[in-house]
């Protein structure tokens, strides 16, 4: 069924279709529409689920531990400072190997306080053992939640997953969205079967102290699971295509007009939509330009990226975040992945705290690349 809805509503509908048992949540702009919608579905009897209105995001993440440890499926959502209040608990959830999905309505971090979009919240949390999907549209937002549970709960993964969608520029934007039926989703996503749970019939201890002889082994297992997730993300994307007739690149990278491209921009989220408009315009002028959209930031699709940039003369990475004192983190990841490929790659910092990224910016970036400029810059209005 097609409906014109906000991405926030799409996220809430996606979550509902996955039949979560418990949703611990704490409100924060611009995530609020997601949890409001879910609360209304629960209180109107459309969704059989418990919502815990916790007293902080720290407790939302902590309650997620309890829900999944008790053997139930858990969904939550947050943004910005909320994600950072959860920060202490993020590696505990992943370290204890609890699957679950959290939507993040990406928003800048204080100070100065800003409610508007950039990627500094989730990108800063990239090392904490969560799989990270980054979406571009409302349709993809809904679909990624459904895919997300299947990826997260895969037996060779068992890791939590974040679905990142741009605050306001996507969360509050209305688009037509094809909403799958419950029967279709039930067929695609089986019921949650925990590998281990708190069970009085089979008592186990969760969260013990790991001494130096065991700690690193746990981390290696987590890394192995993350690497497994690369193939699982691709497989789930293909399975989704068969079930629903939609897919997003190979699940890891989404390429646009890259076949004969000489110059490309690389980015995540809604800025990719703007990039496509610019690319279409430049293509009409005969310029061979394309886009690589990073859909999965963790685990990082290194091999796929090396393949995608083959044949390029130069590329530009647009980071909606700055690792202060370094460059954009997406840029440093990409440069590290392709260091042996002999192409120019420039770092552009753009769209921090909600500053617009426009077609003109992309025209300028492609012009820089074509002129052989060896350095990126900050793209202001």
């Amino acid at each position, binding site marked *: 069924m097609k409906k014109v809805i906000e991405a926030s509503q799409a996220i809430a509908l996606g979550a509902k279709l996955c039949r979560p048992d418990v949703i*611990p949540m704490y409100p924060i702009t611009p995530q609020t529409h997601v949890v409001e919608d879910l609360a209304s579905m629960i209180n109107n009897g459309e969704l059989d689920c418990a919502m815990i209105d916790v007293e902080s995001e720290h407790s939302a993440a902590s*309650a997620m531990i309890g829900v999944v440890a008790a053997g139930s499926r*858990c969904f939550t959502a947050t943004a910005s400072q909320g994600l950072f209040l959860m920060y202490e608990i993020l590696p505990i959830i992943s370290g204890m190997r609890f699957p679950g999905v959290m939507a993040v309505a990406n928003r800048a971090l204080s100070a100065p306080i800003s409610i508007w979009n950039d990627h500094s919240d989730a990108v800063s949390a990239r090392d904490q053992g969560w799989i990270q999907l980054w979406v571009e549209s409302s349709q993809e937002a809904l679909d990624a939640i459904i895919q997300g549970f299947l990826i997260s709960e895969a037996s060779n993964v068992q890791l939590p997953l974040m679905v990142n969608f741009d605050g306001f520029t996507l969360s509050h934007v209305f688009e037509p969205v094809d909403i799958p039926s419950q029967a279709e989703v039930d067929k695609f996503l089986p019921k949650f079967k925990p590998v281990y749970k708190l069970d009085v019939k089979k*008592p186990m201890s969760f969260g*013990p*102290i790991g*001494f130096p002889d065991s700690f690193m082994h746990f981390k290696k297992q987590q890394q192995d699971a993350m690497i497994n997730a690369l193939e699982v993300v691709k497989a789930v994307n293909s399975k989704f295509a068969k079930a629903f007739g939609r897919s997003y690149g190979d699940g890891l990278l989404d390429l646009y007009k890259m076949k004969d491209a000489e110059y490309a921009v690389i980015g995540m989220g809604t800025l990719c939509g703007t990039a496509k408009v610019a690319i279409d315009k430049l293509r009409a002028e005969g310029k061979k330009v394309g886009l690589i959209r990073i859909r999965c930031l963790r685990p990082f699709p290194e091999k796929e990226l090396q393949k995608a940039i083959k044949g390029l003369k130069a590329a530009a990475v647009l980071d909606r975040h700055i690792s202060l004192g370094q460059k954009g983190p997406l840029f440093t990841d990409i440069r590290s992945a392709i260091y042996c490929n002999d192409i120019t790659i420039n770092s552009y910092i753009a769209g921090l705290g909600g500053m617009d990224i426009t077609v003109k910016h992309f025209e300028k970036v492609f012009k820089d690349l074509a002129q052989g400029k060896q350095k990126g810059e900050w793209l202001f209005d």
Partner: protein
Amino acid sequence: MIKGLPYAEYFVSGHRACAGCGEALMIRHVVKAAGPNTIAVMSTGCMEVVSTPYPQTSWGIPWIHGAFENNSAIASGIDAALKKQGKRDETNLLVFGGDGASFDIGFGALSGALERGHKFTYVCTDNEAYMNTGIQRSGGTPLYASTTTSPAGSKVAGKQEPKKPLPFIVASHGIKYVATASPVNVFDLHKKVKKALATPNASYIHAFSVCPVGWYTKPEATIEIAKLAVNSRVFPLYEIEDGVLTFTQKIEKDKAIPVLDYLKVQGRFKHLKPEQVKEIQKYVDTRYDFLVGIEGKKAFDCLF
């Protein structure tokens, strides 16, 4: 084995707690009273460290530890999930936290979980300082006690503030069962745990937990010190049921031993001057008189 108490143990020996640890003793009896159909959530702290050195565990019931300040929030998730699964009534949910976790860093999460009406029994094992990190001052440290961050210096001697009244703050949330418990009477402790677990929503037990290392006391004196605390009225034993306070062991004024008897056997108070002992005595008397004043009266609203 104590005659009249269940034989089975769910917090078993082999853990690495110090000799004479009052906290391990209280936990052992709380889970013994709760029995096998129990899930335990625990904060980071001594008990978590000593009981689960991977791959070993002292726990015979399902046990989970996440972080320092989130035991109540993890319990909220477990409670909600078990209710959704329709398995809530058959399972006890015990939540353990030391004074640091309960008075200080996890206080917000505890208050939130109480306000939301989750069903769990919170057991604060109060040893009156951050013992796991090396005896630092907490909101549960008593007046003038010396800790490593409130040392008995020549200018400032010990902690300058009295304890936060946590059982009363918890009771103010309107929960139906709050009790204090001490190892001096394990039968009383078992009875209180059973009552707490039978409460339809949240319940709370404040467990007096002697720490020989942090209090500078002899390991073999743990029970004796707990007795001195009760008999000097430093640690009153009571229950608050439906908002009404009753003593489970009332110490009349003329029967009470001087607070000094309790203080003088502990290294953490050895710097005290007579006027400070007097001040502590006055504080203990005033507080106990207050309890006597509200005894048998509806002192707290009950929301649930």
